[in-house]
């Protein structure tokens, strides 16, 4: 059983929802990424989403773009990110790690090399933002061959036929983007999510995580009631941006503990 599947089954057994925080690897500087990952776990993270920096993050808002820019100032590339996961795994063998980013750094490394390295260092899932199912067959065959879960996005604008198509390809969990727009946008519409979910559940048998627009305990708790996992990205990245290097690990830990508490209520 994969780490992702085991994690969600454990949570289900205890009737709890997954907290899935996102940070960008190398933000604010490379030496802080592994300590931040450990702190996220200590604060209650169930699955970790680790962003691979990219020069042109089209689907992200300004907050996560700035995180990429900070990481790229330190020349953090995909092979560094994989090394960071390897270092994290020296002290943590149970928390799933999902790499999230854009396809080009992987294309540059080669999918076969990438998938093999993921398996070696202990990456569990890969979410390639700009590779929809239409363009994913060959790339994701490499991931599957090495036992890495391809994680897919679904959006409010995704038609039901596409939901069914994604359901066939997805492994691990499915990430539902809860609003139109880029990461870090406001205006979470809970009613719209509630209306869309039955359609998703008809096809998706995997756990469903919801992200985009979750800013605090209240929104996290409300979203948690609707699905299996809550993804929090821009809010945490904002905390990293606003903190000094000395305080960043403890500040992020504090924020994630608040979110965890709200979700578990």
């Amino acid at each position: 059983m994969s780490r992702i599947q085991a994690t969600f089954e454990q949570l289900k057994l205890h009737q709890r929802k997954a907290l899935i925080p996102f940070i960008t690897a190398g933000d604010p500087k490379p030496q802080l990424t592994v300590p931040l990952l450990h702190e996220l776990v200590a604060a209650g993270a169930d699955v970790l989403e680790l962003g691979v920096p990219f020069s042109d993050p089209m689907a992200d808002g300004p907050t996560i773009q700035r995180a990429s820019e900070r990481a790229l100032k330190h020349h953090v590339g995909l092979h560094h990110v994989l090394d960071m996961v390897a270092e994290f795994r020296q002290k943590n063998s149970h928390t799933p790690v999902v790499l999230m980013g854009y396809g080009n750094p992987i294309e540059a490394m080669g999918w076969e090399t990438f998938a093999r390295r993921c398996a070696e260092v202990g990456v569990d899932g890969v979410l390639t933002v700009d590779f929809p199912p239409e363009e994913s067959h060959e790339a994701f065959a490499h991931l599957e061959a090495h036992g890495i879960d391809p994680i897919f996005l679904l959006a409010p604008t995704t038609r039901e036929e596409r939901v069914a198509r994604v359901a066939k390809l997805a492994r691990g969990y499915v990430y539902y983007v809860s609003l139109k727009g880029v990461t870090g946008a406001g205006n979470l519409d809970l009613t719209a999510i509630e209306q869309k979910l039955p359609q998703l559940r008809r096809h998706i048998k995997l756990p469903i995580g919801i992200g985009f627009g979750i800013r605090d305990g209240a929104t996290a708790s409300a979203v948690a009631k609707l699905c299996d996992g809550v993804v929090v990205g821009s809010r945490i990245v904002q905390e990293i941006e606003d903190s000094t290097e000395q305080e960043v690990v403890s500040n992020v830990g504090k924020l994630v503990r608040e979110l965890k508490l709200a979700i578990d209520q």
Partner: protein
Amino acid sequence: MYNYPDAHGHFGPYGGIYVAETLMGALEELNAAYEKYRNDPQFVAEFERDLKHYVGRPSPIYHAERLTSYLGGAQIYLKREDLNHTGAHKINNTIGQALLAKRMGKQRVIAETGAGQHGVATATVAARMGMECVVYMGAEDVQRQSPNVFRMKLLGATVVPVHSGSKTLKDALNEAMRDWVTNIENTFYIIGTVAGPHPYPAMVRDFNAVVSRESIVQMPEMIGRLPDAVIACVGGGSNAMGAFYHYIDVPQVRLIGVEAGGYGIETGKHAAPLTVNAPVGVLHGNKTYLMQDADGQIIETHSISAGLDYPGVGPEHCWLKDSGRAEYVAINDDEALAAFNTLCRFEGIIPALESSHALAHAMKIAPGMSKDKVLLVNLSGRGDKDINTVAKLQGITL
């Protein structure tokens, strides 16, 4: 019979639809609308009428006799896209896409722009159709192309300077995509080049193909035969695709795309992914030759001309290169500038710095060819927008 792309927008291994799920719904809607209207007689008639009465088509072909005799070789003919309304080929495409937007019930159009020509062409059609218009432009390009920024504002558009990344065309494209994903219900994204996710590369080509549809008739009327080569500059590659398209199945006509060599290919500071065989990658929704580092990060490009300053290239050009149907070369900043000045002095035509690249290549090869050979250069735009850039290079303050 040339018949690309396939149903999913692939030109061989290039092109495709590499976008986040949040955009897939909008692209499916656009693709359905384009498939519905592209051969609809009413749509085609309205497009043709606008090209004739609003743009002033067909654009003439002009025999540059003084330039030809100065060079002493092949005959140089210019396809005068610079004489179109708004001064470049870009209006062919924006009219087509705006007519489509109208039929799709979209009230708001957005665009990215590099040199500002596409922004002006979009603002123009938006004004004419009474649509709201927002144009994203790299902050550096806003500086380089201030006359066009003011033209867009006069036309009622909002120009948003983009300060992220390299502050040029690619960053403007990123920002426009973000706007689109956020305002997907009422907004039509008018992409200005033959790049982006399917159906944009094919659609933008089809609207610009009027250039070669005209020239393939005009040349025989003028000189009794087709040209030996068609030469066009390539940034994203929309004017070149338009100028090449109807010649693709006419193998005796050479197709030559001219990329921006910037400070010189050897300096690495250029925008010539095809010429240098850049690694294939994925950016802005399509697979293409892409200027990138070993980590797959997109690198900053350089060109004297904002309209060519782009790290990728339209996927169809990648395919035409690989299949050997078209050839691609680079022209440096200084060569383009020399061609710019030469055309001004010999023919009384101020060309865009983008088009000056195509012209410079024609001037380079013409002297080595016999006088009965014919080169058709696509003069894709006029250079009024570039006078600040050129003056600055000559140390002159306007």
